[in-house]
């Protein structure tokens, strides 16, 4: 019987059915659920690694040891893991190894819109791209087979609309795979110049064989597939764009659906293009397939009519190709925007308010707290990538000594472990007077509450060693370390002020669990005494979504949202906010 699977859940099911034994990942939207769901299956060892580089190296080690392995990450995570990626391409595997990478066209939850297909070409690895949950499941299994057939890691690329859409897929039984024998082979697994020179030739030869596979076996297996209807319009596409094109054009076009986006089947494409009058390449983000076509002298229309920005849709395709525009309803109301906000009771709020009072320069990082950049707190100056807050603050302080006592870095507990710690070592080692604030909410928040090395629990909730952030900071050479509760505004303000004034580097650990954690007990919602409220607007400065103003500009607290954190109560000079 077919079941409704989240794309990520179907990949997890594929891992299970393929006999995968080891999964190591770092959470990242839209890839996170693959690993969370895989952890629910018996027979797969799953873990959250400290970062994507570690995760991929764990998968490489497991594959060489003889067990089918997998690692998942978001597109920017693949940048972190690029180092092992390129060289694992040279070593190849023993048992199958698959890398799941989820791109985020439209940037629903990301800092850039990079196209991971370039990594497949750069690292010379095959890349499969499913177009619904059924293919997520089937392609995951096919990827292991491909990996073992060609002695190569294989990448499965998802995009948000594949990873986070549910569609029907058929389950089957797990096929157990014995752990293969490991045979010592330094010529293959020790990559130093003499060996790597030989392996590079193997990689180039493998790519030729994979290209041949893409023209033949991949076609008979239905991974690369031509569907002929009207030949007036030909569509070369892959992934979610195939679904958009089918909905937009139906049988008014023929389709070449590429399940393998690297290496591309040049002759299959050439033959398809020759049969169709006008050929479009429909691909989100970069002109990856289009460039390949043009390089090989195949005439196609691509990015001269389709954008490189954001997500596509069926309407967009039908308007570009057919000129169709749908009738729509409209209202006169001008609708104010509703950007995401820090949740009611978010522990980051009090800390950002304290930074605002100090008018600090804030070197920011990736996590829920990046929302502190938005109004009314507006307390972030930069946000680049995981860990950059700490290292970039050091750079700023080296460049601009006059302002080092006005500058801080903010970074979450999970992000600090991911890649903030190396920046902190640099601060201690290379002596900058930097203040690093670790926003320790005891969970990986933005991606939906994953455990991490500071929480003392594994992915399955099993108790384990917990990194002590205090001891870690101390061990790298930081002497000034203090722990504060960001719900206590005066303590928080004092800590920020004093550490900025100090003449040596310091770490402030702003510790309070995420208000959304099930284990966190909430105080009853607060109330506003309308007689005492002077409509001064002080409580509005913290940007709490539970507080709004009534017609007379007096504060109102929404009982469905307030968790009784008391931060607003500490701001009210008139005692109008009460338990």
């Amino acid at each position, binding site marked *: 019987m077919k079941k409704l699977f989240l794309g990520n859940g179907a990949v997890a099911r594929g891992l299970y059915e393929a006999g995968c034994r080891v999964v190591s990942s770092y959470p990242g939207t839209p890839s996170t659920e693959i690993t969370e769901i895989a952890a629910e299956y018996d027979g797969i060892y799953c873990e959250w690694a400290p970062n994507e580089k570690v995760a991929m190296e764990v998968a490489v080690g497991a594959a060489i040891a003889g067990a089918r392995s997998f690692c998942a990450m978001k597109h920017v995570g693949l940048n972190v893991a690029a180092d092992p990626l390129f060289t694992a391409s040279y070593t190849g595997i023993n048992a199958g190894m698959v890398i799941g990478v989820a791109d985020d066209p439209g940037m629903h939850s990301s800092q850039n819109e990079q196209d991971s297909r370039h990594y497949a070409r750069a690292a010379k690895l095959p890349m499969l791209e499913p177009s*619904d949950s059924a293919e997520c499941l089937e392609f995951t299994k096919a990827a292991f087979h491909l990996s073992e057939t060609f002695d190569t890691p294989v990448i499965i690329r998802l995009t948000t*609309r594949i990873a986070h859409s549910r*569609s029907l897929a058929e389950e089957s039984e797990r096929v157990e795979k014995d752990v293969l024998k490991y045979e010592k082979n330094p010529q293959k697994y020790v990559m130093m110049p003499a060996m790597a020179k030989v392996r590079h030739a193997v990689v180039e030869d493998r790519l030729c064989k994979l290209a041949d596979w893409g023209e033949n076996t991949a076609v008979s297996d239905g991974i690369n597939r031509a569907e002929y209807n009207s030949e007036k319009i030909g569509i070369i596409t892959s992934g979610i764009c195939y*679904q958009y094109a089918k909905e937009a054009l139906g049988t008014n076009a023929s389709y070449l659906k590429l399940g393998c986006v690297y290496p591309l089947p040049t002759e299959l494409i050439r033959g398809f293009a020759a049969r169709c009058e006008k050929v479009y390449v429909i691909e989100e983000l970069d002109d990856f397939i289009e460039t390949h076509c043009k390089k090989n002298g195949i005439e196609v229309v691509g990015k001269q009519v389709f954008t490189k920005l954001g997500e596509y849709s*069926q309407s967009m395709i039908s308007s570009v190709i057919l000129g169709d525009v749908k009738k729509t309803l409209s*209202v006169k*109301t001008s609708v104010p925007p509703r950007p*995401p906000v820090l949740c009611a009771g978010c522990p980051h709020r009090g800390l950002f308010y304290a930074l605002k009072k100090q008018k600090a320069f804030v070197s920011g990082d990736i996590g829920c707290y990046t929302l502190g950049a938005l109004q009314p707190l507006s307390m972030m100056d930069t946000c680049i990538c995981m860990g950059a807050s700490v290292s970039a603050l050091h750079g700023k302080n080296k460049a601009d000594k006059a302002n080092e006592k006005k500058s801080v870095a903010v970074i979450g507990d999970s992000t600090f472990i991911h890649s903030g710690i190396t920046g902190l070592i640099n601060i201690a080692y290379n002596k900058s007077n930097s203040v690093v604030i670790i926003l320790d909410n005891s969970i990986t928040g933005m991606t939906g509450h994953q455990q991490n090395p500071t929480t003392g629990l594994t992915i399955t909730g099993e108790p384990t060693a917990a990194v002590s952030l205090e001891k870690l900071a101390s061990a790298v050479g930081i002497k000034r370390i203090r722990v504060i509760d960001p719900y206590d505004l005066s303590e928080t303000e004092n800590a920020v002020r004093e550490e900025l004034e100090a003449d040596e580097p310091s770490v402030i650990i702003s510790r309070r669990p995420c208000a959304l954690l099930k284990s966190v007990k909430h105080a009853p919602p607060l109330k506003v005494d309308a007689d005492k409220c002077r409509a001064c*607007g002080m409580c509005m400065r913290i940007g709490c979504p539970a*507080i709004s103003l009534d017609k007379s500009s007096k504060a109102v607290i929404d009982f469905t949202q307030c968790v009784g954190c008391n931060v607003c109560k500490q701001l009210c000079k008139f005692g109008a906010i009460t338990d």
Partner: protein
Amino acid sequence: MPVKSIMIVGVGGQGTLLASRILGEVLTSEGFDVKVSEVHGMSQRGGSVVTYVKYGAKVFSPIIDRGEADIILAFEQLEAARWISYLKPNGKLILNTQKIAPMSVVTGGAGYPDGIIADLEDSGADVTSLDALELAVAAGSAKAVNVVLIGAMAAKTEISKETWL
């Protein structure tokens, strides 16, 4: 059966995601081809959240574009106005009359617009409005808003009462 499209719109935290999952499961049990598209991550944090549910004999795209939704289930007034252009000109809007002020309103930059319901009715949409929060609180939990709204919508679909129960 031609593909039917239902959009669920609301504010992060209101339970729209769970509502779309319940709907997806019910439609699957009825034997339809079903696709549900969700939003996770940053946009969930109190932001404008939209999920799509499509069903029929064969569904290709999991998303709904402007002018394509047969039904919009709106958990909040302003969100109904924000997404109304996604409704088919003869489509149905099921509207929870709850108001949640977005941060741009809370911080005083803009007022929460008045007269949204009348405006939506004037747009040509077939509007059914109800106070789902009040009904949920009366039933025992403010968190049950999503279940109340699914119930209101159930009457507008071809799915039998027995399946929903």
